[in-house]
């Protein structure tokens, strides 16, 4: 099926009516009376029969002439053919942010879907690639789908991301596709500058006034949790903010706000929650744009790690115990610990148990000088400089990854996999050292315990911003993990790898993560000023055919499809007009 680059030439088809008129005019026989038909030989026909039989005969030459005319007009319209693999490559970049779902059922997403289905997918001979532009670009389905397949995949575009990085998606297109692809961006706001080349920016948004929760956080501070909630006005006029902070314990009200906000003004609220095991909900009561009106702050305190200390040194044991207790992340137990501090070269049986082994030298060497430190490792990240005496075993040879070293002497090394039975070897002889009295000591232990805790079953955090990946550490023997909505409906299920599972971000709300017998509750909050600011949303003029005309220039010029048959018909026409029988009325 060819496209026509110059469809205006199709007006030339009107000449067919002119031809037909000329033909009919010419065919209008003039009556001539003669004395006798006897000299016209065999062409005599009865008057009645002649009139009725001759006229309806197929005007073959007229048909040929019309066919020639049609073919020449079609050739003049500059047809381009697209066949087989030569389909028009079209890439749809779909803004996956929450603002596209505002004001359902008249949301920008609904309008965009309607446009895509009625215009883009209806365009002939296209192969479509759909890229969801969320925090990261994500291809929906596969590359180069047929329109019907793309239509079936569109339902996966649900606009749950906290941010739509359209330019990252465009960069991905630039890097991954040829320059001749047509790119259509579906979003709710105008571009910062006019798109160029084969990119078309299609905006379906509508400017709205909005008040939103733009930040919410909770952190532990001693025996209480401190919370922080930020409200921002994205209205064009001063507006009223009515909000409240509730504890999940029977919706106990702990704070209320009733104030006026100027356009763009931010109001921050800080408060303390003593019941660290209760969830906190912040909500705006008077804003019709509801997708950013609620934030949940769930309890953030994890179950403490169980730590065993199998050390006899009277210097080392209290230093370790004190550092563990100071961290607030673990408690020292006697048995079934998740982490063992020891001075013995023990072999761990439990594949999820970590060991921290102190290598105490019988003939230590005093060390002074610069310590090399791997600051990128979670165990040594953020450690302060070493300002203490450090006696080491100079004969110790490293077998794993060295994190701290002095010259050729390893000070701290790790062996094994963190998701299994990791072993850390610390070259330290406390009798001749005072590192355990320096600031580095509790920091090192905090890092160790925090790192270990990351590999304890459960999510990496309990309160997420929408768009962030939700990482879950799996209990031993659990291969799959499931995410359920607040109503108990399955939202997602992923397989674990190395006892870790990662969910892509669900829409804001409360979720339960279930891994085997264990389960945890998490909250996803939008908290995105960029998404909540709907003042710049707009709709631009939507073209009937979004594909730029030059798209078709890539494809084969098939004017010869029409010119060659037209020439053949011309030859036939010439032959018939030259060689037909004299005065033969049947032509």
């Amino acid at each position, binding site marked *: 099926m060819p496209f026509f680059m110059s469809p205006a030439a199709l007006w030339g088809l009107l000449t067919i009516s002119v031809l037909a008129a000329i033909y009919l005019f*010419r*065919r*209008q*026989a*003039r*009556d*001539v*009376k*003669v*004395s*006798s*038909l*006897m*000299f*016209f*030989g065999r*062409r*005599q*026909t*009865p*008057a009645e029969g*002649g*009139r009725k039989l*001759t006229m309806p005969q197929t005007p073959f030459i007229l048909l040929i002439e019309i066919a020639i005319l049609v073919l020449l007009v079609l050739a003049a319209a500059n047809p381009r053919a697209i066949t087989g693999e030569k389909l028009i490559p079209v890439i749809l970049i779909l803004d996956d942010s929450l603002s596209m779902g505002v004001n359902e059922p008249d949301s920008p997403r609904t309008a965009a879907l309607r446009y895509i289905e009625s215009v883009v997918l209806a365009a002939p001979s296209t192969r479509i690639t759909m890229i969801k532009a969320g925090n990261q670009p994500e291809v929906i389905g596969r590359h180069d789908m047929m329109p019907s397949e793309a239509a079936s995949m569109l339902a996966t575009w649900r606009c749950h991301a906290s941010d739509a990085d359209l330019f990252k998606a465009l960069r991905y297109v630039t890097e991954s596709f040829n320059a001749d692809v047509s790119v259509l961006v579906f979003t709710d706001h105008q571009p910062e500058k006019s798109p160029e080349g084969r990119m078309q920016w299609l905006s379906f948004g509508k400017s709205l006034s909005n008040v939103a929760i733009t930040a919410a956080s909770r952190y532990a501070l001693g025996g209480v949790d401190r919370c922080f909630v930020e409200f921002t006005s994205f209205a064009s006029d001063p507006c009223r903010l009515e909000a409240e902070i509730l504890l999940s314990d029977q919706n106990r009200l702990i704070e209320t706000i009733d104030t006026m906000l100027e356009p763009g003004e931010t109001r921050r609220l800080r408060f303390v929650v003593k019941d660290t095991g209760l969830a906190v909900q912040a909500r705006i009561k008077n804003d019709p744009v509801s997708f950013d009106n609620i934030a949940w702050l769930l309890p953030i305190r994890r179950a403490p790690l169980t730590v065993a200390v199998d050390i006899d040194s009277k210097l080392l044991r209290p230093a370790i115990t004190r550092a563990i207790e100071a961290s607030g992340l673990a408690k020292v137990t006697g048995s079934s610990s998740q982490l063992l501090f020891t001075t013995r070269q023990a072999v761990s049986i439990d594949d999820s148990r970590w060991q921290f082994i102190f290598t105490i030298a019988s003939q230590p060497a005093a060390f002074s000088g610069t310590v090399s430190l791997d600051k990128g490792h979670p165990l040594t990240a953020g450690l302060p400089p070493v300002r203490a005496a450090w006696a080491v075993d100079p004969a110790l040879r490293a077998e794993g990854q060295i994190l701290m070293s002095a010259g050729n002497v390893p000070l701290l090394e790790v062996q094994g996999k963190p998701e299994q039975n990791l072993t850390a070897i610390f070259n330290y002889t406390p009798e001749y050292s005072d590192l355990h009295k320096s600031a580095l000591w509790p920091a090192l232990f905090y890092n160790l315990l925090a790192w270990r805790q990351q590999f304890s079953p459960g999510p990496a955090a309990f309160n997420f911003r929408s768009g962030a990946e939700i990482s879950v550490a799996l209990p031993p023997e659990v291969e799959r993990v499931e995410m359920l909505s607040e109503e108990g409906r399955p939202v997602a299920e992923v397989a674990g790898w190395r006892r870790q599972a990662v969910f892509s971000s669900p829409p804001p709300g409360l979720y339960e993560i279930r891994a085997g017998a264990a389960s945890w509750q998490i909250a996803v909050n939008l908290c995105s000023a960029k998404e909540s600011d709907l003042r710049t949303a707009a709709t631009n003029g939507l073209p009937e055919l979004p594909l730029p005309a030059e798209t078709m220039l890539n494809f084969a010029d098939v004017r010869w499809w029409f010119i060659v048959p037209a020439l053949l018909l011309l030859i036939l026409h010439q032959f018939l007009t030259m060689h037909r029988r*004299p*005065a*033969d*009325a049947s*032509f």
Partner: protein
Amino acid sequence: MSSLRETVNAAELAGQRFYLNVSSRFSGLQGGGRFGRNTGNSLEFVDHREYQPGDDVRHIDWNAMARSDRLSVKLFREEVSPHLDLLIDASRSMQLDDTRKREALYAMTAILRTAAINAGYTVSSWIVKDRCRRVEPASLPIYDWPGNDCDFSGNIGQTLVSFPPLLRPAGVRVLISDLFWNEEPQAVLRQLSNNAALLVIVQLLAEPDILPPLAGNVRILDCESGAAVEVVAEEGLLREYQANFARHQEYWKRSCTRVGAVFTRCVAGSFLQEMVPEELLKNEILMARSR
């Protein structure tokens, strides 16, 4: 009608310039009560001339021979009783639209009738349609003849063969027609020439009969039968027409020669301009009168 009247009057006036030849070469003519223009067997002496082989020996003037020793014969005035039968084709083709064929038909009739009367002929006129009807009284002006409108759509040849007129024996017979019918000429000519002193066929044509004015896409209508045919008129068609027409005319000529008839042709337009039947004069059927 007024046009016909004027034309007939003009033709009768023109006919005064001619007389129908009354000649012994029209072997069928019998002796009668009128003198012919030539020498003959009457008792009225005209002249002497030298004997020529073949002369009737009864006309040798013996007295003159005795006086001059030369053989001479007496010439006597011819005595004839001539009659002309005019047969007029009144079919529709003789009244072809946009032509003056009918006027020419009756103009020719008028000239022949006048010339015949000038030569002492008695004249009978026959209008040929489905039957051959004699015009009576014979002196009736042509434009007042009953049935002089050419409206017969049948075959004149068939009428002449199937319902022949009662023609006077040994008379001169003239048929004026376009001869556009599908009938064997021999049958018609045999019928008309039987017992005739002379048969003259005058083919009267209009210019479109010789070269039809056809161009482009036309529907040709036969004015007699109403039959029609649609054609794209072009050179080939006209060539074919002219060839067929010439063949037809040649066939009639040959047929006339075979029965001793005289075939002449007349084209209406040019004839009406001059009112001179050239071919009849050329064949000495008509003779110019001396002033």
